[in-house]
């Protein structure tokens, strides 16, 4: 990351992602759905209640029998507890709440969830990370492990650490989730992408978070 992008991220009055954090705070406190409950109505104030949550996600949801990332958890909460419609993937509302929740873990190290149900899913994520895919026949690992730091066209290849999501990406001129970023790469190697929320993407997220264990959450991050 260039010094100017880092400076933009570090200064909350320059970081445009803080606009979404503000949105998320308002949504956290807004009653929705048939329950007429807000997030705060159950959880209380987010700075205490949500501290560290983003640093240990994705988690296994026993009732749904699948792994869920933070956005998936927010939508499960909406349907189960607020009796509200789930928010659309990549909607400004969902990105706002997700950013606000993850922001409460800023500066905390990523910890690998020990839930045994997650281990085989994380392993599937690792295998997918190393699987060559698409017309270009490239695996995530070939760029992000073996060639990180070199330039693909004009862009420095990053090490693929999911420390800052949702991120404000200058190329997007807006906010986006880790799954949006993963789908970008899938299309880049000309592979058939997965829909938002697909379990394959959550498994890949599980592996990426384990791979980044100990790194500090920096949501909301700014990326080129």
């Amino acid at each position: 990351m260039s010094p100017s992008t880092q400076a933009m991220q570090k200064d909350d009055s320059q970081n445009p992602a803080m606009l979404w954090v503000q949105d998320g705070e308002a949504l956290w406190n807004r009653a929705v759905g048939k329950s007429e409950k807000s997030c705060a109505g159950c959880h209380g104030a987010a700075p205490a209640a949500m501290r560290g949550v983003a640093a240990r996600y994705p988690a296994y949801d026993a009732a749904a029998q699948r792994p869920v990332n933070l956005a998936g958890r927010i939508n499960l909460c909406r349907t189960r507890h607020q009796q509200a419609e789930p928010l659309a993937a990549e909607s400004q509302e969902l990105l706002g709440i997700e950013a606000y929740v993850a922001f409460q873990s800023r500066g905390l190290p990523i910890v690998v969830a020990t839930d045994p149900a997650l281990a085989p899913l994380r392993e599937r994520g690792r295998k997918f990370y190393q699987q060559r895919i698409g017309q270009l026949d490239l695996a995530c690992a070939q760029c992000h492990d073996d060639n990180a730091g070199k330039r693909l066209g004009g862009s420095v290849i990053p090490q693929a650490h999911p420390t800052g999501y949702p991120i404000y990406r200058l190329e997007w001129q807006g906010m986006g989730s880790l799954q949006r970023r993963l789908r970008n790469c899938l299309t880049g190697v000309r592979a058939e992408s997965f829909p938002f929320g697909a379990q394959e993407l959550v498994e890949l997220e599980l592996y990426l978070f384990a791979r980044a264990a100990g790194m500090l959450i920096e949501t909301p991050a700014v990326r080129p």
Partner: protein
Amino acid sequence: MGPGSSAFAQAPPPPLPYVVADDGIPEPLTGAPGDAVRGRAIVANRQAGLCLLCHSGPIPEERFQGTLAPDLGGAGSRWSAAQLRLRLVDGRQLNPTTIMPSYYRVQGLVRVGAAWQARTLLTAQQIEDVVAYLLTLRAPRQ
């Protein structure tokens, strides 16, 4: 063409057969000779050849060239036409772990997007054009 069909949607012909000898493909893939001018355009085009995403090369009008792979400058002094042809067609026959895509192979790929299924990255003629261009890239005499 009727409604719902287009040239894009039609299944392309399968790749032509070729014969590998030593570390190259001695015979051209097509009867028509390669055109170095067309080849240069393919190399420079980030949607067609994609070459400059990883390689740099003597194409000064194209900014933001990659650093993942060797400079294409001098490629014509380092390699013969046969060697260049195999490295483009399916370099993984020589180095299974290379990040260079196989530009003329449709077998053995996983989860190829619908728009690219059964399609080679370049056509046989485009391969010949790129080979012709790369052969013009001579290293300066010492």
